[in-house]
Protein backbone atom coordinates (compact mmCIF):
# COMPACT_ATOMS: atom_id res chain seq x y z
CA UNK A 1 0.00 0.00 0.00
CA UNK A 2 1.32 3.38 -0.91
CA UNK A 3 0.89 6.49 1.09
CA UNK A 4 -0.77 9.47 -0.46
CA UNK A 5 1.27 12.45 -1.54
CA UNK A 6 -1.52 14.82 -0.45
CA UNK A 7 -0.58 16.50 2.79
CA UNK A 8 -2.79 15.15 5.60
CA UNK A 9 -4.88 17.59 7.66
CA UNK A 10 -6.50 17.23 11.06
CA UNK A 11 -10.27 17.68 11.24
CA UNK A 12 -11.51 20.90 12.85
CA UNK A 13 -12.72 18.96 15.90
CA UNK A 14 -9.30 17.36 16.33
CA UNK A 15 -7.55 20.71 15.93
CA UNK A 16 -9.65 22.17 18.74
CA UNK A 17 -8.91 19.17 20.97
CA UNK A 18 -5.18 19.49 20.25
CA UNK A 19 -5.23 23.15 21.28
CA UNK A 20 -7.11 22.26 24.48
CA UNK A 21 -4.45 19.66 25.28
CA UNK A 22 -1.53 22.00 24.53
CA UNK A 23 -2.92 24.48 27.07
CA UNK A 24 -2.49 21.89 29.84
CA UNK A 25 1.26 22.52 29.83
CA UNK A 26 3.32 25.70 30.33
CA UNK A 27 3.40 27.68 27.03
CA UNK A 28 7.11 26.98 26.50
CA UNK A 29 6.48 23.24 27.07
CA UNK A 30 4.13 22.44 24.19
CA UNK A 31 6.29 19.41 23.41
CA UNK A 32 4.62 17.77 26.42
CA UNK A 33 1.53 17.36 24.23
CA UNK A 34 3.36 15.00 21.90
CA UNK A 35 2.01 11.66 23.18
CA UNK A 36 -1.62 12.79 23.46
CA UNK A 37 -1.44 14.36 19.99
CA UNK A 38 0.08 11.19 18.50
CA UNK A 39 -2.91 9.26 19.91
CA UNK A 40 -5.27 11.72 18.23
CA UNK A 41 -3.32 11.45 14.97
CA UNK A 42 -3.51 7.66 15.01
CA UNK A 43 -7.27 7.81 15.58
CA UNK A 44 -7.70 10.42 12.82
CA UNK A 45 -5.61 8.76 10.13
CA UNK A 46 -6.72 5.14 10.01
CA UNK A 47 -4.94 3.53 12.97
CA UNK A 48 -1.34 4.32 12.10
CA UNK A 49 1.00 7.30 11.86
CA UNK A 50 2.76 7.68 8.51
CA UNK A 51 5.88 9.87 8.21
CA UNK A 52 3.63 12.57 6.69
CA UNK A 53 1.25 12.39 9.63
CA UNK A 54 4.19 12.59 12.04
CA UNK A 55 5.45 15.69 10.22
CA UNK A 56 2.01 17.20 10.67
CA UNK A 57 2.14 16.40 14.40
CA UNK A 58 5.50 18.18 14.61
CA UNK A 59 4.03 21.17 12.80
CA UNK A 60 0.94 21.60 15.01
CA UNK A 61 2.98 21.29 18.20
CA UNK A 62 5.84 23.41 16.93
CA UNK A 63 8.72 20.95 17.30
CA UNK A 64 11.13 19.31 14.85
CA UNK A 65 9.99 16.18 12.98
CA UNK A 66 12.91 14.18 14.47
CA UNK A 67 11.50 14.86 17.92
CA UNK A 68 8.32 13.06 16.84
CA UNK A 69 10.10 10.16 15.10
CA UNK A 70 12.28 9.36 18.11
CA UNK A 71 9.21 9.20 20.33
CA UNK A 72 6.83 7.35 17.98
CA UNK A 73 9.48 4.65 17.53
CA UNK A 74 10.01 4.25 21.30
CA UNK A 75 6.41 3.67 22.42
CA UNK A 76 4.68 0.48 21.34
CA UNK A 77 1.18 1.87 20.81
CA UNK A 78 1.99 3.79 17.66
CA UNK A 79 1.73 1.80 14.46
CA UNK A 80 4.34 2.94 11.97
CA UNK A 81 3.00 0.82 9.13
CA UNK A 82 -0.49 0.53 7.62
CA UNK A 83 -2.84 -1.73 9.57
CA UNK A 84 -6.19 -3.41 9.01
CA UNK A 85 -9.47 -1.86 10.07
CA UNK A 86 -9.14 -3.32 13.55
CA UNK A 87 -5.86 -3.86 15.37
CA UNK A 88 -6.28 -6.65 17.92
CA UNK A 89 -3.66 -6.22 20.62
CA UNK A 90 -3.32 -9.57 22.36
CA UNK A 91 -1.66 -9.61 25.78
CA UNK A 92 0.99 -12.35 25.92
CA UNK A 93 2.57 -11.71 29.34
CA UNK A 94 2.75 -14.32 32.16
CA UNK A 95 -0.65 -13.89 33.83
CA UNK A 96 -2.47 -13.97 30.47
CA UNK A 97 -0.31 -16.90 29.35
CA UNK A 98 -1.37 -18.80 32.50
CA UNK A 99 -5.01 -18.34 31.42
CA UNK A 100 -4.58 -19.31 27.78
CA UNK A 101 -3.27 -16.37 25.71
CA UNK A 102 -1.13 -18.70 23.53
CA UNK A 103 -4.25 -20.68 22.62
CA UNK A 104 -6.18 -17.44 22.03
CA UNK A 105 -3.49 -16.14 19.67
CA UNK A 106 -3.46 -19.40 17.68
CA UNK A 107 -7.26 -19.39 17.54
CA UNK A 108 -7.36 -15.79 16.28
CA UNK A 109 -4.77 -16.54 13.61
CA UNK A 110 -6.82 -19.51 12.47
CA UNK A 111 -10.18 -17.81 12.22
CA UNK A 112 -9.07 -14.42 10.88
CA UNK A 113 -6.32 -15.60 8.54
CA UNK A 114 -4.06 -12.86 9.88
CA UNK A 115 -0.54 -13.61 11.11
CA UNK A 116 0.40 -12.41 14.56
CA UNK A 117 2.85 -9.48 14.31
CA UNK A 118 2.62 -9.94 10.56
CA UNK A 119 0.19 -9.86 7.67
CA UNK A 120 -3.30 -8.39 8.05
CA UNK A 121 -6.21 -10.78 7.38
CA UNK A 122 -6.95 -11.24 3.66
CA UNK A 123 -10.24 -9.30 4.04
CA UNK A 124 -8.28 -6.32 5.39
CA UNK A 125 -10.27 -6.32 8.63
CA UNK A 126 -7.90 -7.59 11.28
CA UNK A 127 -4.28 -6.99 12.25
CA UNK A 128 -3.00 -9.13 15.12
CA UNK A 129 -0.36 -7.61 17.38
CA UNK A 130 1.11 -9.25 20.47
CA UNK A 131 1.59 -6.79 23.33
CA UNK A 132 2.91 -6.93 26.87
CA UNK A 133 0.83 -6.69 30.06
CA UNK A 134 -2.36 -4.62 29.68
CA UNK A 135 -3.03 -4.43 33.45
CA UNK A 136 -6.18 -6.53 33.40
CA UNK A 137 -4.61 -9.83 34.55
CA UNK A 138 -7.61 -10.87 36.64
CA UNK A 139 -9.77 -10.94 33.53
CA UNK A 140 -7.31 -12.84 31.32
CA UNK A 141 -6.93 -13.52 28.48
CA UNK A 142 -7.35 -10.00 27.11
CA UNK A 143 -7.48 -8.28 23.76
CA UNK A 144 -7.48 -4.51 23.34
CA UNK A 145 -8.99 -2.90 20.26
CA UNK A 146 -8.49 0.87 20.18
CA UNK A 147 -9.84 2.10 23.55
CA UNK A 148 -11.81 -1.01 24.40
CA UNK A 149 -10.74 -4.03 26.44
CA UNK A 150 -12.27 -7.39 25.57
CA UNK A 151 -11.85 -9.59 28.64
CA UNK A 152 -11.99 -13.28 29.54
CA UNK A 153 -11.66 -14.45 25.95
CA UNK A 154 -11.25 -18.05 27.04
CA UNK A 155 -14.10 -19.53 25.00
CA UNK A 156 -14.73 -19.58 21.23
CA UNK A 157 -18.11 -17.91 21.94
CA UNK A 158 -16.46 -14.93 23.65
CA UNK A 159 -14.02 -14.54 20.75
CA UNK A 160 -16.85 -14.78 18.20
CA UNK A 161 -18.84 -12.10 20.04
CA UNK A 162 -15.85 -9.76 19.87
CA UNK A 163 -15.22 -10.38 16.17
CA UNK A 164 -18.91 -9.98 15.30
CA UNK A 165 -19.04 -6.67 17.13
CA UNK A 166 -15.98 -5.47 15.25
CA UNK A 167 -17.21 -6.70 11.85
CA UNK A 168 -20.43 -4.74 12.39
CA UNK A 169 -18.60 -1.50 13.07
CA UNK A 170 -18.71 0.69 9.99
CA UNK A 171 -17.02 3.58 11.76
CA UNK A 172 -14.85 3.45 14.81
CA UNK A 173 -16.57 4.63 18.03
CA UNK A 174 -16.72 8.44 18.35
CA UNK A 175 -14.18 10.14 20.60
CA UNK A 176 -15.39 12.74 23.15
CA UNK A 177 -14.68 15.72 20.86
CA UNK A 178 -16.33 14.17 17.80
CA UNK A 179 -19.96 14.00 16.80
CA UNK A 180 -19.46 10.73 14.98
CA UNK A 181 -16.54 8.37 14.65
CA UNK A 182 -14.36 8.44 11.57
CA UNK A 183 -14.23 5.53 9.16
CA UNK A 184 -12.03 2.81 10.57
CA UNK A 185 -9.63 2.87 7.68
CA UNK A 186 -8.92 5.78 5.39
CA UNK A 187 -8.35 5.67 1.68
CA UNK A 188 -4.63 6.05 2.14
CA UNK A 189 -4.13 2.81 3.98
Amino acid sequence: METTSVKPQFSEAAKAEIERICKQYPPERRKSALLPVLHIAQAEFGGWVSPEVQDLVAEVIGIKPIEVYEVSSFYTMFNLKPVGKHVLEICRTGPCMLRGSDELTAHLERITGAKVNGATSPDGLFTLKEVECLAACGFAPIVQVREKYYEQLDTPAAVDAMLTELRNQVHRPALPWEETGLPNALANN
Partner: protein
Amino acid sequence: MGRKLLTEHINVEGIDTFEIYRKHGGYRSVEKALKTMTPDEVVEEVKKSGLRGRGGAGFPTGMKWSFLAKPEGVPRYLVCNADESEPGTFKDRQLMSKLPHLLVEGMITSSYALGANTSYIYIRGELLYVLRILEKAIAEAYAAGFLGKNILGSGYDLDLHVHPGGGAYICGEETALLESLEGKRGNPRNKPPFPAVQGLYARPTVVNNVESIAAVPVIVNDGGEEYAKIGVGRSTGTKLFSACGHLNKPGIYEIELGLPVEEFIYSDEYCGGIWKGRDLKAVVAGGSSVPILPKELILKTAAGEPRLMSYESLSDGGFVTGTMLGSGGFIAMDETTCIVRNTWSFSRFYHHESCGQCSPCREGTGWLEKVLHRLEHGHGHMEDIDLLVSVAKQIEGNTICPLGEAAAWPVAAAVRHFRDEFEWHVTHAKEAAQPGAVYQGVLVRA
Protein backbone atom coordinates in the same frame (compact mmCIF):
# COMPACT_ATOMS: atom_id res chain seq x y z
CA MET B 1 -14.40 -9.11 57.00
CA GLY B 2 -11.72 -6.42 57.00
CA ARG B 3 -12.39 -2.73 56.75
CA LYS B 4 -12.53 -1.16 53.32
CA LEU B 5 -11.09 2.34 53.37
CA LEU B 6 -10.83 2.93 49.63
CA THR B 7 -13.35 0.61 48.04
CA GLU B 8 -16.25 0.71 50.51
CA HIS B 9 -18.56 2.35 47.95
CA ILE B 10 -17.02 0.90 44.79
CA ASN B 11 -20.20 -0.94 43.78
CA VAL B 12 -22.61 1.91 44.48
CA GLU B 13 -24.60 2.77 41.37
CA GLY B 14 -23.42 6.09 39.92
CA ILE B 15 -20.44 6.45 42.30
CA ASP B 16 -18.41 7.64 39.30
CA THR B 17 -20.52 10.84 39.25
CA PHE B 18 -19.72 13.85 41.42
CA GLU B 19 -23.21 13.97 42.90
CA ILE B 20 -23.37 10.39 44.18
CA TYR B 21 -19.72 10.39 45.26
CA ARG B 22 -20.35 13.57 47.26
CA LYS B 23 -23.47 12.05 48.85
CA HIS B 24 -21.28 9.23 50.16
CA GLY B 25 -18.94 11.63 51.92
CA GLY B 26 -16.77 12.50 48.94
CA TYR B 27 -14.54 15.61 48.95
CA ARG B 28 -14.78 16.02 52.75
CA SER B 29 -10.97 15.83 52.95
CA VAL B 30 -10.67 18.82 50.60
CA GLU B 31 -13.02 20.88 52.78
CA LYS B 32 -11.26 19.84 55.96
CA ALA B 33 -7.75 20.44 54.65
CA LEU B 34 -8.38 23.74 52.87
CA LYS B 35 -10.57 25.24 55.58
CA THR B 36 -9.04 23.99 58.82
CA MET B 37 -5.48 22.78 58.16
CA THR B 38 -2.19 24.23 56.95
CA PRO B 39 -0.38 22.32 54.18
CA ASP B 40 2.26 21.20 56.71
CA GLU B 41 -0.44 19.82 58.98
CA VAL B 42 -1.67 17.64 56.13
CA VAL B 43 1.88 16.38 55.52
CA GLU B 44 2.17 15.66 59.25
CA GLU B 45 -0.99 13.50 59.23
CA VAL B 46 0.30 11.50 56.26
CA LYS B 47 3.58 10.99 58.10
CA LYS B 48 1.73 9.79 61.22
CA SER B 49 -0.35 7.38 59.15
CA GLY B 50 2.73 5.37 58.21
CA LEU B 51 1.37 5.11 54.65
CA ARG B 52 3.95 3.48 52.40
CA GLY B 53 4.13 4.01 48.65
CA ARG B 54 1.70 1.58 47.05
CA GLY B 55 3.39 1.46 43.66
CA GLY B 56 5.96 -1.14 44.67
CA ALA B 57 8.87 0.38 46.56
CA GLY B 58 6.98 0.85 49.84
CA PHE B 59 8.79 4.08 50.72
CA PRO B 60 6.94 6.14 53.37
CA THR B 61 4.78 8.67 51.51
CA GLY B 62 4.92 11.37 54.21
CA MET B 63 8.72 11.24 54.23
CA LYS B 64 8.81 11.50 50.43
CA TRP B 65 6.60 14.58 50.69
CA SER B 66 8.84 16.19 53.29
CA PHE B 67 11.84 15.92 50.93
CA LEU B 68 10.17 18.25 48.41
CA ALA B 69 12.31 21.35 47.87
CA LYS B 70 10.35 24.58 48.24
CA PRO B 71 12.41 27.42 46.81
CA GLU B 72 10.57 30.75 46.84
CA GLY B 73 8.74 31.67 43.63
CA VAL B 74 9.41 28.37 41.85
CA PRO B 75 6.40 26.24 40.86
CA ARG B 76 6.36 22.67 42.13
CA TYR B 77 4.38 19.72 40.87
CA LEU B 78 2.53 16.67 42.06
CA VAL B 79 2.42 13.91 39.45
CA CYS B 80 0.32 10.82 39.97
CA ASN B 81 1.85 7.64 38.59
CA ALA B 82 -1.02 5.79 36.92
CA ASP B 83 1.28 3.95 34.52
CA GLU B 84 0.23 0.62 35.99
CA SER B 85 2.10 -2.01 33.94
CA GLU B 86 3.80 -4.43 36.31
CA PRO B 87 2.55 -7.86 35.19
CA GLY B 88 0.00 -9.14 37.68
CA THR B 89 -1.04 -5.65 38.77
CA PHE B 90 -4.42 -4.19 37.81
CA LYS B 91 -5.65 -2.44 40.95
CA ASP B 92 -5.23 1.18 39.83
CA ARG B 93 -7.18 0.59 36.63
CA GLN B 94 -10.14 -0.66 38.68
CA LEU B 95 -9.86 2.11 41.23
CA MET B 96 -9.70 4.86 38.60
CA SER B 97 -12.43 3.53 36.36
CA LYS B 98 -14.90 2.86 39.17
CA LEU B 99 -13.95 5.57 41.68
CA PRO B 100 -12.48 8.38 39.57
CA HIS B 101 -13.48 11.03 42.10
CA LEU B 102 -11.50 9.32 44.85
CA LEU B 103 -8.31 9.92 42.89
CA VAL B 104 -9.36 13.48 41.99
CA GLU B 105 -10.12 14.21 45.65
CA GLY B 106 -6.79 12.70 46.71
CA MET B 107 -4.96 14.79 44.11
CA ILE B 108 -6.56 18.02 45.35
CA THR B 109 -5.82 17.36 49.02
CA SER B 110 -2.29 16.14 48.28
CA SER B 111 -1.52 19.03 45.92
CA TYR B 112 -2.63 21.45 48.65
CA ALA B 113 -0.30 19.75 51.13
CA LEU B 114 2.63 20.09 48.72
CA GLY B 115 1.81 23.59 47.50
CA ALA B 116 1.42 22.51 43.89
CA ASN B 117 -0.83 24.66 41.68
CA THR B 118 -0.68 22.39 38.64
CA SER B 119 -0.81 18.63 38.94
CA TYR B 120 -0.83 15.79 36.45
CA ILE B 121 -2.10 12.24 36.40
CA TYR B 122 0.15 10.24 34.04
CA ILE B 123 -1.91 7.27 32.91
CA ARG B 124 -0.63 4.48 30.67
CA GLY B 125 -1.71 5.03 27.07
CA GLU B 126 -3.55 1.72 26.85
CA LEU B 127 -6.03 3.06 29.38
CA LEU B 128 -7.34 5.89 27.22
CA TYR B 129 -10.88 4.87 28.17
CA VAL B 130 -10.01 5.45 31.83
CA LEU B 131 -8.48 8.81 30.89
CA ARG B 132 -11.91 9.77 29.49
CA ILE B 133 -13.55 8.76 32.79
CA LEU B 134 -11.04 10.81 34.79
CA GLU B 135 -11.42 13.85 32.53
CA LYS B 136 -15.17 13.73 33.06
CA ALA B 137 -14.70 13.54 36.83
CA ILE B 138 -12.24 16.44 36.71
CA ALA B 139 -14.70 18.57 34.70
CA GLU B 140 -17.36 17.85 37.34
CA ALA B 141 -14.96 18.86 40.11
CA TYR B 142 -14.18 22.14 38.31
CA ALA B 143 -17.91 22.83 37.90
CA ALA B 144 -18.46 22.22 41.63
CA GLY B 145 -15.67 24.61 42.61
CA PHE B 146 -13.25 21.94 43.87
CA LEU B 147 -10.71 22.72 41.14
CA GLY B 148 -9.65 25.97 39.50
CA LYS B 149 -9.12 29.36 41.10
CA ASN B 150 -9.74 30.06 44.79
CA ILE B 151 -11.07 26.59 45.68
CA LEU B 152 -13.90 26.84 48.26
CA GLY B 153 -12.91 30.44 48.88
CA SER B 154 -9.61 29.33 50.45
CA GLY B 155 -7.38 31.30 48.10
CA TYR B 156 -5.79 28.05 46.90
CA ASP B 157 -5.65 27.48 43.11
CA LEU B 158 -5.21 24.12 41.42
CA ASP B 159 -5.38 22.86 37.84
CA LEU B 160 -5.44 19.11 37.32
CA HIS B 161 -4.77 17.36 34.01
CA VAL B 162 -4.57 13.77 32.79
CA HIS B 163 -1.73 12.83 30.44
CA PRO B 164 -1.57 9.54 28.49
CA GLY B 165 1.59 7.51 27.93
CA GLY B 166 2.26 5.65 24.70
CA GLY B 167 2.89 2.05 25.73
CA ALA B 168 6.11 1.58 27.72
CA TYR B 169 6.50 -0.25 31.05
CA ILE B 170 9.60 1.79 31.80
CA CYS B 171 7.50 4.94 32.23
CA GLY B 172 6.34 3.55 35.58
CA GLU B 173 9.85 4.44 36.80
CA GLU B 174 9.38 7.96 38.10
CA THR B 175 12.11 9.77 36.19
CA ALA B 176 11.21 7.98 32.93
CA LEU B 177 7.63 9.03 33.60
CA LEU B 178 8.73 12.67 33.91
CA GLU B 179 10.71 12.44 30.65
CA SER B 180 7.62 10.99 28.98
CA LEU B 181 5.43 13.76 30.40
CA GLU B 182 7.85 16.22 28.81
CA GLY B 183 7.20 14.60 25.43
CA LYS B 184 10.38 12.53 25.21
CA ARG B 185 11.41 8.87 25.09
CA GLY B 186 11.01 7.21 28.48
CA ASN B 187 14.68 7.00 29.40
CA PRO B 188 15.19 7.08 33.19
CA ARG B 189 17.38 9.88 34.51
CA ASN B 190 20.46 9.54 36.63
CA LYS B 191 19.84 10.35 40.29
CA PRO B 192 20.74 12.67 41.93
CA PRO B 193 19.24 15.12 41.31
CA PHE B 194 16.10 13.51 42.67
CA PRO B 195 12.68 14.62 41.41
CA ALA B 196 12.05 16.27 44.81
CA VAL B 197 14.67 18.82 43.74
CA GLN B 198 14.60 18.64 39.92
CA GLY B 199 11.62 16.79 38.54
CA LEU B 200 9.09 17.84 35.92
CA TYR B 201 10.52 20.72 33.83
CA ALA B 202 13.45 20.68 36.29
CA ARG B 203 11.09 21.87 39.06
CA PRO B 204 10.64 20.21 42.47
CA THR B 205 8.22 17.32 41.95
CA VAL B 206 6.59 14.53 43.93
CA VAL B 207 5.54 11.38 42.06
CA ASN B 208 3.06 9.11 43.88
CA ASN B 209 1.16 5.98 42.91
CA VAL B 210 -2.64 6.12 42.39
CA GLU B 211 -3.37 4.01 45.44
CA SER B 212 -1.13 6.13 47.68
CA ILE B 213 -2.95 9.29 46.59
CA ALA B 214 -6.32 7.57 47.02
CA ALA B 215 -5.44 6.81 50.65
CA VAL B 216 -4.86 10.49 51.49
CA PRO B 217 -8.56 11.48 51.84
CA VAL B 218 -9.22 8.84 54.50
CA ILE B 219 -6.03 9.79 56.35
CA VAL B 220 -7.04 13.46 56.40
CA ASN B 221 -10.63 12.67 57.38
CA ASP B 222 -9.89 10.21 60.18
CA GLY B 223 -6.41 11.38 61.16
CA GLY B 224 -3.08 9.68 60.62
CA GLU B 225 -3.12 7.99 64.02
CA GLU B 226 -6.43 6.25 63.33
CA TYR B 227 -5.11 5.00 59.97
CA ALA B 228 -1.95 3.71 61.63
CA LYS B 229 -4.03 1.55 64.01
CA ILE B 230 -5.07 -0.60 61.06
CA GLY B 231 -2.65 -3.22 59.81
CA VAL B 232 0.35 -4.76 61.49
CA GLY B 233 3.64 -3.18 62.61
CA ARG B 234 5.09 -0.87 59.97
CA SER B 235 2.56 -2.15 57.44
CA THR B 236 -0.26 0.24 58.26
CA GLY B 237 -3.64 0.61 56.64
CA THR B 238 -5.27 -1.34 53.89
CA LYS B 239 -3.79 -2.43 50.57
CA LEU B 240 -5.32 -3.42 47.28
CA PHE B 241 -4.16 -6.79 46.00
CA SER B 242 -4.88 -7.77 42.43
CA ALA B 243 -5.14 -11.54 42.36
CA CYS B 244 -4.71 -13.42 39.09
CA GLY B 245 -3.47 -16.64 37.58
CA HIS B 246 -4.96 -20.00 38.53
CA LEU B 247 -7.43 -18.84 41.18
CA ASN B 248 -11.14 -19.55 41.46
CA LYS B 249 -11.91 -15.89 42.04
CA PRO B 250 -9.30 -13.62 40.53
CA GLY B 251 -9.94 -9.91 41.09
CA ILE B 252 -9.19 -6.89 43.27
CA TYR B 253 -9.30 -7.27 47.03
CA GLU B 254 -8.78 -4.54 49.60
CA ILE B 255 -7.37 -6.15 52.72
CA GLU B 256 -6.11 -4.94 56.05
CA LEU B 257 -2.37 -5.53 55.95
CA GLY B 258 -1.47 -8.56 58.04
CA LEU B 259 -4.00 -11.01 56.61
CA PRO B 260 -2.52 -14.54 56.42
CA VAL B 261 -1.59 -15.47 52.84
CA GLU B 262 -3.28 -18.84 53.30
CA GLU B 263 -6.59 -17.17 54.14
CA PHE B 264 -6.25 -14.84 51.15
CA ILE B 265 -5.74 -17.73 48.75
CA TYR B 266 -8.20 -20.25 50.12
CA SER B 267 -10.98 -18.32 51.86
CA ASP B 268 -14.19 -17.85 49.88
CA GLU B 269 -14.19 -14.24 51.00
CA TYR B 270 -11.09 -13.73 48.86
CA CYS B 271 -9.65 -15.87 46.07
CA GLY B 272 -11.62 -19.04 46.84
CA GLY B 273 -8.74 -21.48 46.31
CA ILE B 274 -7.02 -22.87 43.23
CA TRP B 275 -9.04 -23.51 40.09
CA LYS B 276 -10.05 -26.90 38.74
CA GLY B 277 -9.48 -28.50 42.14
CA ARG B 278 -5.74 -28.44 41.55
CA ASP B 279 -2.93 -27.90 44.02
CA LEU B 280 -0.98 -24.65 44.36
CA LYS B 281 2.58 -24.80 43.03
CA ALA B 282 4.00 -21.29 43.40
CA VAL B 283 3.10 -17.64 43.90
CA VAL B 284 4.56 -14.37 42.69
CA ALA B 285 3.20 -12.15 45.43
CA GLY B 286 3.96 -8.58 44.43
CA GLY B 287 4.10 -8.22 40.65
CA SER B 288 6.33 -10.07 38.20
CA SER B 289 9.59 -8.55 39.39
CA VAL B 290 9.52 -9.96 42.92
CA PRO B 291 10.99 -13.40 43.64
CA ILE B 292 8.71 -16.37 43.04
CA LEU B 293 8.09 -18.61 46.07
CA PRO B 294 7.05 -22.28 46.09
CA LYS B 295 3.84 -23.18 47.93
CA GLU B 296 5.58 -24.14 51.20
CA LEU B 297 7.38 -20.80 51.47
CA ILE B 298 4.48 -18.55 50.48
CA LEU B 299 2.16 -20.10 53.05
CA LYS B 300 4.76 -20.28 55.83
CA THR B 301 8.08 -18.56 56.46
CA ALA B 302 11.25 -20.62 56.72
CA ALA B 303 10.79 -20.48 60.50
CA GLY B 304 7.38 -22.12 60.13
CA GLU B 305 5.37 -18.97 61.00
CA PRO B 306 2.27 -18.26 58.94
CA ARG B 307 3.21 -15.85 56.13
CA LEU B 308 1.20 -12.63 56.33
CA MET B 309 0.29 -10.11 53.65
CA SER B 310 2.49 -7.34 55.02
CA TYR B 311 5.71 -5.68 53.88
CA GLU B 312 7.71 -7.31 56.69
CA SER B 313 6.28 -10.83 56.60
CA LEU B 314 6.49 -11.21 52.82
CA SER B 315 10.13 -10.15 52.88
CA ASP B 316 10.94 -12.36 55.89
CA GLY B 317 13.94 -14.50 54.96
CA GLY B 318 15.27 -11.98 52.46
CA PHE B 319 15.56 -13.30 48.93
CA VAL B 320 16.71 -16.72 50.13
CA THR B 321 13.33 -17.80 51.50
CA GLY B 322 11.23 -14.64 51.19
CA THR B 323 9.99 -12.20 48.59
CA MET B 324 8.45 -8.69 48.55
CA LEU B 325 4.99 -7.15 48.78
CA GLY B 326 5.78 -4.96 45.77
CA SER B 327 2.75 -3.62 43.93
CA GLY B 328 0.33 -6.22 45.27
CA GLY B 329 0.14 -8.09 41.96
CA PHE B 330 -0.55 -11.59 43.27
CA ILE B 331 -0.02 -14.29 40.64
CA ALA B 332 -0.92 -17.85 41.67
CA MET B 333 0.26 -20.86 39.67
CA ASP B 334 -1.25 -24.32 39.88
CA GLU B 335 0.62 -27.62 39.83
CA THR B 336 0.59 -27.85 36.02
CA THR B 337 2.54 -24.62 35.56
CA CYS B 338 5.90 -24.94 33.85
CA ILE B 339 8.20 -22.66 35.83
CA VAL B 340 10.77 -22.48 33.02
CA ARG B 341 8.14 -21.34 30.55
CA ASN B 342 6.72 -18.81 32.98
CA THR B 343 10.17 -17.41 33.73
CA TRP B 344 10.89 -17.19 30.00
CA SER B 345 7.66 -15.22 29.52
CA PHE B 346 8.66 -12.73 32.22
CA SER B 347 12.17 -12.39 30.75
CA ARG B 348 10.71 -11.75 27.32
CA PHE B 349 8.65 -8.99 28.93
CA TYR B 350 11.67 -7.28 30.51
CA HIS B 351 13.75 -7.63 27.36
CA HIS B 352 10.93 -6.05 25.37
CA GLU B 353 10.52 -3.24 27.91
CA SER B 354 14.18 -2.39 28.56
CA CYS B 355 14.71 1.16 27.31
CA GLY B 356 18.17 0.22 26.05
CA GLN B 357 20.07 2.97 27.83
CA CYS B 358 22.30 0.78 30.04
CA SER B 359 24.26 -2.08 28.48
CA PRO B 360 23.86 -4.55 31.40
CA CYS B 361 20.08 -4.33 31.10
CA ARG B 362 19.80 -4.00 27.32
CA GLU B 363 22.15 -6.94 26.66
CA GLY B 364 21.46 -8.89 29.86
CA THR B 365 17.70 -9.07 29.43
CA GLY B 366 18.29 -10.31 25.89
CA TRP B 367 20.60 -13.03 27.16
CA LEU B 368 18.13 -14.09 29.84
CA GLU B 369 15.33 -14.36 27.30
CA LYS B 370 17.48 -16.24 24.79
CA VAL B 371 18.86 -18.77 27.27
CA LEU B 372 15.44 -19.37 28.83
CA HIS B 373 13.94 -19.78 25.37
CA ARG B 374 16.40 -22.52 24.48
CA LEU B 375 15.93 -24.30 27.82
CA GLU B 376 12.15 -24.18 27.40
CA HIS B 377 12.29 -25.34 23.79
CA GLY B 378 14.53 -28.34 24.37
CA HIS B 379 17.89 -26.94 23.24
CA GLY B 380 19.40 -26.08 26.61
CA HIS B 381 22.61 -27.22 28.27
CA MET B 382 23.32 -27.85 31.96
CA GLU B 383 25.72 -24.85 32.01
CA ASP B 384 22.86 -22.61 30.93
CA ILE B 385 21.35 -22.77 34.40
CA ASP B 386 24.39 -21.20 36.05
CA LEU B 387 24.70 -18.85 33.10
CA LEU B 388 21.27 -17.47 33.95
CA VAL B 389 22.34 -16.82 37.53
CA SER B 390 25.56 -15.20 36.36
CA VAL B 391 23.81 -12.89 33.86
CA ALA B 392 21.22 -11.92 36.49
CA LYS B 393 24.02 -11.05 38.94
CA GLN B 394 25.77 -8.89 36.36
CA ILE B 395 22.63 -6.85 35.69
CA GLU B 396 21.83 -6.26 39.35
CA GLY B 397 23.08 -2.94 40.69
CA ASN B 398 24.66 -1.93 37.39
CA THR B 399 21.83 0.06 35.82
CA ILE B 400 20.44 3.58 36.12
CA CYS B 401 16.96 2.41 37.12
CA PRO B 402 15.51 -0.65 38.89
CA LEU B 403 14.25 -2.34 35.69
CA GLY B 404 17.55 -4.22 35.74
CA GLU B 405 16.82 -5.72 39.15
CA ALA B 406 13.20 -6.32 38.17
CA ALA B 407 14.44 -8.45 35.28
CA ALA B 408 17.14 -10.25 37.28
CA TRP B 409 15.25 -11.16 40.46
CA PRO B 410 12.55 -13.41 38.98
CA VAL B 411 15.13 -15.46 37.09
CA ALA B 412 17.46 -15.84 40.07
CA ALA B 413 14.53 -16.85 42.29
CA ALA B 414 13.13 -19.36 39.80
CA VAL B 415 16.51 -21.10 39.59
CA ARG B 416 16.92 -20.91 43.38
CA HIS B 417 13.62 -22.62 44.15
CA PHE B 418 13.03 -24.77 41.07
CA ARG B 419 16.54 -25.76 39.94
CA ASP B 420 15.51 -29.38 39.55
CA GLU B 421 12.87 -28.37 37.02
CA PHE B 422 15.44 -26.43 34.98
CA GLU B 423 17.78 -29.45 35.09
CA TRP B 424 14.97 -31.73 33.99
CA HIS B 425 14.40 -29.46 30.99
CA VAL B 426 17.99 -30.30 29.95
CA THR B 427 18.01 -34.01 30.76
CA HIS B 428 14.54 -34.57 29.30
CA ALA B 429 14.70 -31.84 26.67
CA LYS B 430 12.39 -33.48 24.17
CA GLU B 431 9.74 -34.50 26.70
CA ALA B 432 9.74 -31.17 28.48
CA ALA B 433 8.87 -29.30 25.32
CA GLN B 434 5.80 -31.46 24.62
CA PRO B 435 2.25 -30.97 25.89
CA GLY B 436 1.39 -33.45 28.60
CA ALA B 437 4.93 -33.45 30.03
CA VAL B 438 5.00 -34.93 33.52
CA TYR B 439 7.75 -34.23 36.01
CA GLN B 440 7.85 -35.89 39.45
CA GLY B 441 4.31 -37.08 38.95
CA VAL B 442 3.13 -33.57 38.15
CA LEU B 443 1.92 -32.34 34.81
CA VAL B 444 4.22 -29.47 33.90
CA ARG B 445 2.90 -28.82 30.42
CA ALA B 446 -0.89 -28.86 30.12
